[in-house]
């Protein structure tokens, strides 16, 4: 069967090989083995061609199945049909041309390709839906420089009727994000960094270090909403305790610093994990050289170990900031929702970008005209994604540019 379906017949030279080959080729042994080393694989153009054919076929199928009057294409259905047709087509052709094992291999290979494409679809879709509406919202005058003070249902109704563009902005949310994240960073980075220094430099695998490693793992798994609950509950208990002592305190626990506490619970384990990893890769020779020069341990750590690992540490800290700046749930529970700029994290409610997005989507300013609110939310989402991706990019750049040379000696 292999012989008969082979379209490209191999040249005698390729069959013979270095040893000269066996003649005649119709012995049983020659039947078992392929005609040449590349004999029983599909040509390179096979998969693209098969994919193209199945895309076309499924397109035709979707058009045929759809309504005759209005020419609309269901893209999801198109993808599903194309994937199925591609899988079946490639399997059947390989089965006929080569053999069952190759066909099975082909089937799974295509299934993996389909899975990969499937994973990319939501990424593309999310970025597109954010970018299209969000960019439009960004071009509104004063979007970055004004807050939501004085924006209400009638403002949005006016927008909808074309009296003016979308008003209101996210200045207060950006400031809130900055203040809360900065406070959380100021708490988390020293604690996290010192802990990883303890784990790497001081502890020799004692019970304390094992306990810390274990509980840092536990902390990594804390759901963000539980961290928010902790922040709110702890601050409420603390305030009522302070109040009973007669210390003047704000009446409600909802304020920026509560959110910062909740965020640091989420941030500390990330900082510990990343910095610990970075400190561990610092070669021991450097430490020993420093000790040999008579430098004390704490100076060795500060002047030799940390500078060597600083790029990784900076990258890790940046990544952990990127992680917490997108958190919504803990801040929703701890900092409330404000419409104007509040610089003071110890008094009054604060808004961050994610909470602003959440509020604009769940409680649009106008009960029926959702578009202005949604546009503000998408624009804020665009800013947020740009911030997070920018931080990720910065972390990568720091890690690669300032990385210590590996072969420094």
């Amino acid at each position, binding site marked *: 069967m292999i012989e008969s379906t082979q379209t490209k017949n191999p040249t005698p030279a390729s069959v013979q090989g270095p040893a000269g080959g066996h003649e005649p080729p119709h012995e049983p042994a020659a039947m078992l083995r392929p005609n040449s080393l590349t004999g029983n694989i599909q040509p390179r153009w096979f998969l693209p061609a098969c994919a193209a054919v199945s895309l076309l076929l499924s397109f035709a199928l979707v058009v045929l199945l759809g309504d005759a009057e209005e020419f609309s294409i269901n893209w*999801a259905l198109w993808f599903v049909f194309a994937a199925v047709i591609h899988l079946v087509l490639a399997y059947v052709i390989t089965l006929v041309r080569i053999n069952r*094992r190759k066909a*099975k*291999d082909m089937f799974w290979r295509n*299934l*993996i390709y*389909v*899975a990969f494409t*499937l*994973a990319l679809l939501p*990424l593309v*879709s*999310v970025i597109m*839906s954010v970018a299209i509406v969000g960019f439009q919202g960004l071009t509104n005058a004063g979007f970055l420089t004004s807050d939501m003070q004085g924006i209400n249902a009638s403002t949005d109704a006016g927008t909808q009727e074309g009296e003016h563009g979308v008003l209101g902005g996210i200045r207060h949310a950006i400031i809130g994000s900055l203040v809360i994240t900065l406070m959380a960073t100021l708490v988390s980075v020293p*604690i996290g960094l010192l*802990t990883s*220094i*303890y*784990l790497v430099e001081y502890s020799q695998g004692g019970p*304390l270090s094992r306990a*810390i490693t274990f*509980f840092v793992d*536990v902390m990594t*798994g*804390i*759901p*963000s*909403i*539980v961290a*928010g*609950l*902790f922040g709110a*509950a*702890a601050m*409420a208990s603390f305030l*009522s305790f302070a109040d009973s002592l007669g210390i003047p305190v704000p009446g409600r626990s909802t304020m920026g610093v509560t959110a910062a506490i909740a965020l640091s619970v989420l941030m500390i384990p990330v900082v510990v994990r990343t910095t610990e990893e970075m400190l561990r890769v610092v070669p021991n020779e450097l430490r020993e050289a420093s000790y*040999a020069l*008579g*430098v*004390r*341990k*704490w100076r060795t*750590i500060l002047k030799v170990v940390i500078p060597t690992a600083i790029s990784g540490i900076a990258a890790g800290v940046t990544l952990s900031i*990127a992680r917490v700046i*997108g*958190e*919504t*749930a803990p801040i*929703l*529970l701890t900092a*409330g929702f404000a419409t104007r700029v509040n610089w003071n994290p110890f008094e009054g409610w604060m808004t961050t970008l994610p909470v602003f*997005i*959440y509020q604009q*989507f*769940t409680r649009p300013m106008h009960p029926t005209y959702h578009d202005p609110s949604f546009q503000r939310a998408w624009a804020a*989402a665009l800013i*947020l*994604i740009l911030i*997070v991706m920018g931080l*990720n990019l910065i972390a990568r750049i720091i890690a690669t540019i300032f990385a210590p040379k590996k072969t420094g000696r």
Partner: protein
Amino acid sequence: MSSDESQSSGQTLQTRSGRRTRSSEATGNSLASGDRAGAGLDRGFAGLARFAGIGILIILAFVAFFLVYNSWGAIYHDQDGQADSASFHIGEFISHAWPLVIGTLIVSVIALLIAAPVAIGVALYISHYAPPRASRSIGYVIDLLAAIPSVVYGAWGMTFLAPQLVPLYNWLNEYLGWIPIFGGSPSPTGRTIITAGVVLSVMVLPIITSVCREIFIQTPKLHEEAALALGATRWEMITMTVLPFARGGIISGIMLGLGRALGETMAVVLVLSSGPIAWSIIQSGRHDTIPSNIASNFPESREGSVHWHELIAIGLVLFVITLLVNMLARWIVSRHKEFSGAN
């Protein structure tokens, strides 16, 4: 305190722990003179580092303490308005909590059913199918999925994905309506628990993918090459060497994804229009999860009220569930590490 302690090289080999320098002081070594500040700093720094480590334990103890302390009010409180009638209300709390626990489990299971196979496929693509030069950057692209904040996923699921899925729900209801989970009247808005599960699956995908990818790459090259040399196709090589080697890693990756899915708030709260528990997963206004219940009720609840305590108690339940799942995952990983096929 500045530079001269580095010159006190007399006992540098002993200064690795600050305590030993004391003995050299006692002997009156001249090189140790002026070293007292250095030794103190050494000890101080070590103490600071240890204190930070202990600080983390204290913080976690605080988390547990405040959650438990404030949860107490949920099961032991007054009857409405009567100050002296404090009593246990465990049954009340359980009847409030179990639909939320079930809802959380349903949405997580849906998310994992979708995400796990796709994630394994993507990880295999990155580790064994993609052109080697591109596989690194492809990994970055998948990591981008993890970089998008959850509220953005929620918004995407609510405004874009949910309406797209309505025809599918109608179809499922029409042809598979006799199965209870597809029964009832399908949602006209698409804001159902299954949509929330789909959005969640996108969010847990990068986690499972990265764990699986790490493990797949570690498959011993000798095993792979031996399989290929015996004439196995690439898929046969994967089933014979990669998958058996990575089984523990795959399971733990899925468990970590489960831990994330259980605690995820924003995607569910934005997508799902919540309500009482029901069999059908394609109806609107049904089901609710623990995080989404907390997020939508906590900001409105009065501090110290029974409802407030109840929400914290539910949060504690969630914390315990996630903790168990994560610990199970790590246990599987550590068990796998000991007798993996690598050595």
